[in-house]
């Protein structure tokens, strides 16, 4: 079976971490875009189609939670997986309430991360599918009206 690459946006202020994890994800067939701040993350999302954002919570400037709020407001279909470096399960829970798909404790196991990525991607696809169906129905009804 040919794997369809998930378009991943990897956001962390630790550049080496982004580089290494990016290489690993690319190696298993994902399509990775790096970003090193909340602002950069939003800029990428404006230009590029992204399936899942892997988002660090603790970042200087605009932190993960603030970034998550923006993402959900402006790009509601994009799924977000939070990375918590600290014992900040609290922020992770807050993230879930704000619409994040899931969270992972840093340092995360790669296997766990890829599994979550797959599930997030699946949910996004299903949601997109539902929207398409709903739109089609709407279109059908409208054309029936005519």
């Amino acid at each position, binding site marked *: 079976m040919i794997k369809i690459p998930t378009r991943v946006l990897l956001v962390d202020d630790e550049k080496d971490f982004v580089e290494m994890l990016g290489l*690993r994800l690319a190696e298993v067939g994902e399509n990775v875009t790096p970003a090193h701040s909340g602002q950069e993350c939003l800029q990428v999302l404006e230009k590029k189609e992204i399936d899942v954002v892997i988002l660090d919570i603790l970042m200087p400037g605009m932190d993960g939670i603030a970034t998550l709020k923006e993402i959900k407001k402006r790009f509601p279909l994009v799924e977000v997986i939070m990375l918590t470096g*600290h014992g900040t*399960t609290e922020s992770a829970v807050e993230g879930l309430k704000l619409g994040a798909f899931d969270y992972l404790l840093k340092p995360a196991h790669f296997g766990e991360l890829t599994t979550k990525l797959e599930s997030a991607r699946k949910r996004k696809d299903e949601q997109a599918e539902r929207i398409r169906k709903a739109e089609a129905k709407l279109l059908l009804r409208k054309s029936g009206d005519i």
Partner: protein
Amino acid sequence: MKTIRLLLVDDEDHFRQTIAKRLAKRGLASDQAANGNECLSILEKKSMDVVVLDVKMPGMGGIEVLRNITGKYPKTEVILLTGQATASDGVEGIKSGAFDYLTKPIELEHLFNKIIQAYEKIRRLDAEQKEAEYRKQMAQQMIVTERLASLGTLAAGVAHEINNPLAIIRESAGWMRQLVAKDELKDIPRREDFVKALDKVEKGVERAGRITHQLLGFVGKSESAITEVNLMELTEEAIQLVTHEAQKREIKIVRQMEPSPDTIWSDAYQIRQVLLNLLTNALHAVNSEGIITIAMEDFGDSQAITVSDTGQGIPRENLDKIFEPFFSTKSPGQGTGLGLFVSRGIVEKLGGTIEVASKIGQGTRFSIRLPKQLKKTDDYNESRGENWVEKIKSRFSE
């Protein structure tokens, strides 16, 4: 009034006996000595609060006796009796440490009052000394607590800073592992050495990660969630988690828990962490066929859980150190040396106490006691300060 241990020393038998009789009528019993040597030999056998001492005696004079007493028995007060002509001896006596002097002929009322005053001085000094000791002890305890608190903060800061590079190391090693797995690198020379080294890197990261997580867990205070907790159920849960290991090693777990209808308000998650830590320690302490006893007791306003093992016990020189961070007698990589440090932090944060008693060759007992109602304390050092003042107050207000 507590019995005053009183010794009358005078060579005039009649005078001494009369005074003794009259003091006895007022409720003051006394021992008697007819000379200085007799006085000192009585003091050797029996400690006295107040000695009423005649200055002018054949043989060893009163002043010499006095110097002997103040030198050897600092907690004994001496009242000197001087003749009219020898009042200067009284002044000399006070310089040598006598409480006061009375000039013969004495009024009994006077003597009685002086004895009481001397005794009150002893009691006051005693109380002051106890208070000073108590203060010193509390101050020491606070130094330890503060040291641990600042160590904790520092350690957590370090842990957090280390987590990021750890994540980089982990991902880099993981990336190398992926590379080695690629077809094009299948036949590289010394491939096994390479993979083995990667294993070691990953294990090392794993180990460092465990330490940082535990440290952060210690400081992650804002996460605590206070709910109604059934301590007995919680304990049972914790026991269940170690039962498998206990059975495997033929260790007996004995429960001595009296069911209590009461619950406590506390943090279930954190208490479970403490209980698990104590149970795991007990498991590590005992050989197979050892016994671990878990007891629970209700004290009205608090509940206590005791975990006892029949292990080797903790040497006295280690007992003070076991709650310090990074103290461990396990081999490197086996224990982080943080279990008890973290447990103590948790229990104290929850307003409770944790204590240890141990006997070499017999075993160790850890007791935690938790209040049923958790007092909200924003600053835990401050709350300790208050306790300290209250404790002293309650101890010395009679």
